Each structure stands twice: as structure tokens, then as C-alpha cells.
């Protein structure tokens, strides 16, 4: 077994940054985000001349449609009548850094997962003062899911039995492409898409799921698990074969719908993103099939009401009110329509109109076989470093 201390060496500063990042994610993303120094800060809306209070919410693209609905509906409620809600789409890690740096002067922040929370707190501590989070709540839950075109999934399943990281790796290595997998030669080579682990929460989660699958482990992955030679051989081979990388899960799914099986045969994304895509895909290229990894991971879509110096008292109150609206039964039922599992326990996941009732034919299901614990900080560091080396 390889000693994980024999892995890639980092500078002291790099190590420090990684340590902060690893509380949830990866230094690669952190570094990448540092390049965005255009200096054009996103101005915080202020109380307008009309007497209305304007707030801005930074959010992950996977919740776009639900939050757009909420931003439109909230002002129609008595609590939101004097509030306008602006939305700012940001990757989870991108949002963390931009808020802490004060370039995104927002009042609420809702990334895909709470892994970015530690990055945010660390950055905030070094660039701002005080406790930045006034209140935090989990809005919804989403596991990860493989998405394949139904026609091609049938051929894939015939060949390999099931979709998992091992069979995907085999398909990617197949020199004859689909012709040798039992499909049509004109389908070309098997093409797998992932969110870039250096940029997105879902990309990093994917790397962790690869390791969890390989070791069949639901307990927290250790650096030794990641450094194991057999796993590294499997991981490097798979990483080199991935066909396309996208900056976010939302943009990757959109590309799959727009460009069809010509561009991606399969990708791994949030369950909610896949649910939203099902109808659109059918209007373009045909049906999609969802397949859950045997070991999965929960993304918990936290909402952080911020205690930022640029927020007025009215804006803080409006943000709290907006959060309360998002957790209301009405909003939670609406979230369910977009494939987000309600964070409010009183809203049943199998209620009327729920996609979890209506889309079972596509593979959508409530039960998740097994969920793994978050990997250790060093394990994530090694996964990301290995990924970057392989690519």
C-alpha cells in the first residue's frame, strides 16, 4: 500500500490553502476562482426610491428554475410585498469566494452543498470581520444520478449488466466504440461527461463516489484508500478517458439536451438536474434513463442568511423572510416539481404531482441504497491532485 505522504508535494501556502479548502472541497477550484479579479463587484441592491427593499441571493445553477419561481412569487405574499429578489447564479465555490471577497455583495447564499461552507468561513475570516452567517437552513436534498439515453442504456445494460464506474470505464476504453458494445457503429465512441472537479461541487462529489465505489465503502474515505495503488490505476485510467468537462452540473445537463447523444452518452449529475431535464430531452432526442450509483452522497442545498456589512437592517429582515418563504409548504411543494427532495419534513416526497410518483418509468426513485459519509480532508486533496495529474 502506498503511503499517502508520498503523494504530490505542495508549497506551504498551497498546503495551507488546501487545508482550508478541504474542509469541504478542493484547492484547484479555489485557485481557479482567484483568477476572476475583474474588479467589477456585483453591486448590492439598496432600498429603492420606490420604497421597496431589494435583496440579492447567490445560488447554484441546479436550483435556477425553483428560485426564479420563488423570486417571482415572494413579492406576491404579504411578507414579501415590499421586497424585490435578484438572483445571481454562481458555482458553489465561486460563490463562496466572491462573497467573502466582497465582490458579490449579496444577502443570502444557497450553494448545492454545505461543503463550501468551510471555504467561505475561512475566506471571510481572512478578508472580513465578524460571523457572516446569521441563519442557516437546509432547503432540499439531492443525491447523484447517472443519466443515459434510454436507447443506449438498454444496449449498455445488455452488455455490462449495470451502470457503475467500472463498467463506464470499460465502455470508455472500448476501441471499437458502440459498434463493439452492441450498439450502432454510427453512435461512435462511448462519451462520458462530468462537472469539472476543480470548479464544481458535483465534480468533487463524483471523484469521491468513484473511490467509494471502488472500495465498496460507505464510511469516510481515508487518504490511504485514495493512495492505494489498485485504486489509483483504476482512477487514472477513468480520469483520462472522460470525454467532456463542464463548469457546472446545470451547464453539462443543458449541453447533453441541446447536443444530444452525439456529445454525451452518459453523465453524472444531481438528481434534481436530471429530473428537470427529462421532459426537455424527450422533446429533442428521446427518453433519458436515470440510474443511481450503489453508493451515493447527499447534497443538502443549504441557505445562509448573511450577516454582511453591506446589508441594511431591512435587507436582513427581507432575506430572513425570503428564507422562511422558501421553507413554506407552498415553496417546498414547488421545489418538489423540480426534482428537489423537500428539506421540510412535513412535505411528503410522494405527494400529489410529485415527479417521484410520475417519473418512475425513467428510473427515478425515492430509495437510495447506501449513502457514504464525506471523505476526510486529505482524501479529497489526494483525489483532486490525482485527477489534475491524470488530466
Amino acid at each position, binding site marked *: 500500500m502506498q503511503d499517502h505522504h508520498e503523494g504530490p508535494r505542495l508549497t506551504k501556502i498551497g498546503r495551507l490553502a488546501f487545508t482550508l479548502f478541504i474542509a469541504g472541497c478542493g484547492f484547484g477550484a479555489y485557485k481557479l476562482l482567484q*483568477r*476572476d*479579479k*475583474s*474588479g*467589477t463587484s456585483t*453591486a448590492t441592491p439598496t432600498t*429603492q426610491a420606490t420604497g421597496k427593499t431589494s435583496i440579492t441571493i447567490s445560488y447554484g445553477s441546479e436550483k435556477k428554475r425553483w428560485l426564479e419561481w420563488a423570486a417571482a412569487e415572494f413579492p406576491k405574499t404579504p411578507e414579501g410585498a415590499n421586497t424585490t429578489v435578484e438572483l445571481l*447564479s454562481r458555482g458553489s465555490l465561486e460563490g463562496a469566494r466572491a462573497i467573502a471577497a466582497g465582490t458579490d455583495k449579496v444577502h443570502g447564499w444557497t450553494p448545492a452543498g454545505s461543503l463550501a461552507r468551510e471555504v467561505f468561513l475561512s475566506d471571510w475570516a481572512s478578508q472580513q470581520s465578524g460571523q457572516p452567517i446569521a441563519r442557516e437552513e437546509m432547503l432540499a436534498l439531492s443525491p447523484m444520478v447517472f443519466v443515459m439515453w434510454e436507447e443506449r442504456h438498454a444496449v449498455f445494460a445488455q452488455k455490462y449488466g449495470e451502470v457503475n464506474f467500472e463498467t463506464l470505464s470499460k465502455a470508455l476504453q472500448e*476501441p471499437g*466504440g458502440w459498434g463493439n458494445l452492441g450498439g*450502432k*457503429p*454510427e*453512435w*461512435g*465512441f462511448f*462519451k462520458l461527461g462530468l462537472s*469539472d472537479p476543480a470548479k464544481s461541487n458535483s465534480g468533487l462529489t463524483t471523484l469521491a463516489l468513484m473511490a467509494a465505489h471502488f472500495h465498496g465503502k460507505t464510511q469516510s474515505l481515508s487518504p490511504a484508500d485514495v493512495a492505494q495503488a489498485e485504486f489509483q490505476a483504476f482512477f487514472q485510467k477513468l480520469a483520462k478517458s472522460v470525454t*467532456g*468537462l*463542464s*463548469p457546472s452540473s446545470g451547464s453539462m445537463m*443543458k*449541453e447533453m*439536451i*441541446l*447536443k*444530444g*447523444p*452525439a*456529445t454525451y452518452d452518459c453523465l453524472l449529475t444531481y438528481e434534481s438536474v436530471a429530473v428537470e*431535464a427529462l421532459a*426537455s430531452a424527450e*422533446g*429533442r*432526442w*428521446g427518453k433519458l434513463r436515470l440510474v443511481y450509483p450503489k453508493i451515493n452522497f447527499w447534497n443538502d442545498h443549504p441557505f445562509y442568511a448573511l450577516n454582511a456589512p453591506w446589508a441594511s437592517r431591512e435587507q436582513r429582515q427581507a432575506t430572513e423572510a425570503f428564507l422562511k418563504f422558501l421553507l413554506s409548504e407552498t415553496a417546498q411543494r414547488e421545489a418538489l416539481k423540480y426534482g428537489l427532495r423537500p428539506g421540510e419534513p412535513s412535505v411528503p416526497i410522494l405527494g400529489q404531482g410529485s415527479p417521484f410518483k410520475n417519473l418512475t418509468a425513467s428510473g427515478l426513485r425515492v430509495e437510495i441504497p447506501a449513502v457514504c459519509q464525506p471523505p476526510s480532508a486529505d482524501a479529497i486533496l489526494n483525489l483532486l491532485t490525482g485527477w489534475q495529474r491524470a488530466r
Partner: protein
Amino acid sequence: MASSFRTILRNDVFFMKNTCPNFGSPTLLVCCLLATFALLGCKKSTTQPASPQPQNTISILFAYGSEKETWINQVTESFNSAGRKLPDGRIIQVKPLPMGSGECVEQVLAETGKPHLISPASSVFLKLAEADSLARKGTPLLKGDIETLVLSPVVIAMWQPMAKALGWPGKALGWGNIESLATSKEGWAGLGKPQWGPFRYGHTHPEYSNSGLISILAEIHAAAGKTQPLTLQDLAQPNVAKRLEAMEQAVAHYGSSTGFFGKRMYAAGPAAFSAAVLYENMVVTSRNEPNLPLPLVAIYPKEGTFWSDHPAGVVNRPWVGAAEEAAGRLYLQYLMDTPAQQTALALGFRPGNVAVPVAAPIDAAHGADATQPQTTLPTPEATVIRGALDLWKRHKKHSHVFLALDCSGSMSQENRMGFARQGGLDLLRQLAPEDQVSALPFNHTSNDWAFQGLSLANSRAPAESAIDALFASGGTALYDALAEAHEAAIKTGSSGKIAAVVVLSDGADESSARWTLNKLLQKITVTAERPGPRIFTIAYGANAKKDVLTRIAEATQGKSYTGGTADIRQIFREISTFF
């Protein structure tokens, strides 16, 4: 896809390295590339500032790839008419500026037109520009979300009867079929259709156009007999070069614009091209052409193809403030909304809004198939693309250009002769060593050849000296000179080269003794039964007979240009992309 775009980007940088030998840094190379696209892509001046706006309006400049000009014009007109407002009450007015995709991004990089929004035809250009922006300014080119406005795959456009002869629509066709037809000595006769003559194929110049680059990569895939990523070893195979050269022999001519091939096919029919590499939307909208000789269909190559995906975003520069960004995003949202997307669909584009299904006219009735393409070709590494372009340059269909230059006395005015000489020299510089050139200066009395059939591999200097020594005097015997050049080009036509006449004239024919316009048109007119050399005409200066020169160019399926001393060199450079 990101890595694919980066590869293309590096390739574009490479291309400039080969054509701009004094440019060493990648940044400068990128600048050169973008400038080239700017020169080639657009003749319209788009750099002038917007006219002053009333205080209650905010003006947004939108620089975009001209492939979607019809759609953008329609939806922008309705957007502007709707009087959409910012929260501060200002009415948003968008000024669309169609141009080449390279120029779209160059306007931001060079800070010339200072657009607030841009949308080139392909993400390739954005990736290219983002890299350059970071290198030059240390800041991204665009900010916030980037929208895919519309999409269209690259296809092989073919006349329906010809596609049917190959087995369409039941049989999957591709680049391999193009190779078979292009390399067959029998042409269409080999498929029992001798009346269709030789297989005539068209793609754009790969050093100037994305679809041209895609075409030669696809041809090399076919020549190498593989759909996996190409390698340098593949390019080194003698058989690959041989097969590429054989395929290129079917090319009628090259060009800088994919749109040109579409228009040429619509107008001239199978006599001009049996097939050309176009975008799907061009095939779809061809059905609206009033005089389309036959229906066109899209062949989605079974080996794979590429997408044109029209990305759009807000420019990340100081001239784009919060108000401009807000106004620009409202406009982009308008373009993404269902009504505008349905307008795009009606014009043959696949909607970028995933909620709008792909439907008619992306259907069989319009020569398209919404379930295609089924796969894409892998974009090779930059070194391989570099090698592919080198290979193509050596094995492309070479040319014999007959340059007929008006040297009548009027050419001495405004130094027209001097600029024409420079243009002619520019044309020579763009030609390959394997190309040949002949020059016929003419006035009222003389039509002696300055030189004939010089190979540029070993006679470039004498050819340039002869061009540089031309001077103006006497009258104009345009028809006699053209007949002479055309006759010489016919004799060359069977030598496996692209034979074409380039004629520049600044006045009316007043001295021809042997040929009239009608007689000349009878002689040069190209038909399916009587193919002949193309004539590219330049109506030079205010007194040039544009109508006459246009008739001459159209009779030969060539192209007519109008210019003056300010743009004559650019015109010559654009003509060079056909060879």
C-alpha cells in the same frame, strides 16, 4: 467539450504562426488570427459609435456572427418596439451589429467597437478570445452566464437525387462516401448517373473558416480509415496523403465563407456543386429559395461532425456598467424566451432554450433530421491539427490564376494603378508554391501576356517584379482581354488545377475589336454540360461598369466585387481564399 475547444483554440493560434512568421508570442498570434477573421468576415464598418440617444433610453451594442442575421434582425426589431425598460425608467434599445465571428471578439479585445454583448457562431471563438483576454488584460472577456442562443450541426449538403443515388435516407452516409465519389474517375457515372458529370465538392478554406477546418479533419479521418482521435503517425502515412489529395481534386474551389457555398448551391445548382459542407440551418432554409433547382438534403456524417452553438454573453469591460449589463441580460433573456426561440426554429436553427422542442422545419420535408447527428468526431490535439493543415497545404487542389489587370489611362487617377499593383502582389503572396500564375495587363492596344504559367515555387520573384512594373496608359479593351484569359484558363482546366480568371477594371469597354459583351457571355457561360473556369471580377472605382462585371462573374459562377483604392487589397486577399 471544454478540452475540445481548447484544442481548436491552440490550433487557431498555430495557424497564425504559419501565416505570420514574424509573430512569436501566442497573444500576437491570436490577435493576428482575429484580425484576419475581421478582415475576411465583414465589410461593414461597425466601429462607429452609436448615434446619440435621448436621455430616457439606454443603447446596447450587440456584435454577433452574421450567420444568424435574419433571426437577430427580426427579434431585435420586436424587442426594440416593445419599449422594455430598466427599473430606472430608461427604455432599452439594442443595436445589432452583424459581422464575422472573429471580429465579434476582436471588437472587445481591441476595444474598437466596444459592444456590450457578443455572440460569435461558435464557442471556439469565445475560448480563443478568453485566453487572449486573460493574457492581455488579466481579466475574462465575458461575465456571468453564457447562453447558447441557437445551434446547428455541420452537415454535408447534397442534392436530393444525388443523395438518393447513394442510398439516402435509408443508408447512413458520411465522409467516406465523399471520398469514394471524389476519388472515382467515373464520378456519378460510376453510380449509373453519367448525366450528372463529375462529382463537384465544396468546402471553405480551412485556414479561414471553421467548417473548412472541420472538412479537412473529416477527410483525413476517412483517408486514415479511423474515427478515433487522429495522431501524427496517421498523418505520416503515405496513403493518407494520397487519399487526401485525391479527395481534394473534387473541390471546385475554396472560399472564406460557408454562406457563399450555400448561396452558390442555391443559385447554380448541381452544375456548381454536387455537395458542400454547410450548416444544417442553411439546408433547411434553402427550401425557401424561389429558384432552387432541386431540393437539398442534409447528410449527417456517420463518422461524426461538429456543432455551431452560437454562445452569447455580457462583455466584461469598463464600458459595460451595471445598467448596460442589466439591459443586456434582459435582451438575452428575450432571445431565449419561447417566442424568439420559435422564430429561430422557423429559420432552421435548433433552439438554445431546452424547453422549446426541436420541431418543423427541422424535418424530412426540409431535408433535415432532428434525431441527428448521432456522434461527433474527436477534436485532435493541437499538434495534430497543425500537421493536418500542413498536410492539406501540400495536397490541396492547387490553382492556376489568370490575372487580367486593366492598365488603361484612367488607372493613373487617384493612384489606382499603384493600389491595384499592391493588391495583385497580395494575391500572389497568398498563393502556395505549388500554384501557378499568369498575368495579362490590358489597355486599348495591347493584350500581351506579362508572363504565363509561372510556377510560384521557383518564379515568385519574376512574377512580382512584372506586376510591380505595370503602368497605366491608353483605353480599355476589357472583352478582348477577358476572352484571351478565359481561353488560356480553359486549356489549363484539365490539368487538375483550379483554373480561374481574376479581372480588375475601372471603366467601360471602349476598345475591344473582336468581342462584344454578348459574344463574350455566350463563350464563358458555365452549364452542367459545359463547365469552365470561373471569373472573379472587381469593379474598381466609381466609373467601373459594375453591372457588366457582375454579369460576367455570374455567368461563370464566380463572384463579383466592388471596391476602390481603400479596400482593393482586402478584396484581392479575399479572392485568394478561393484558391
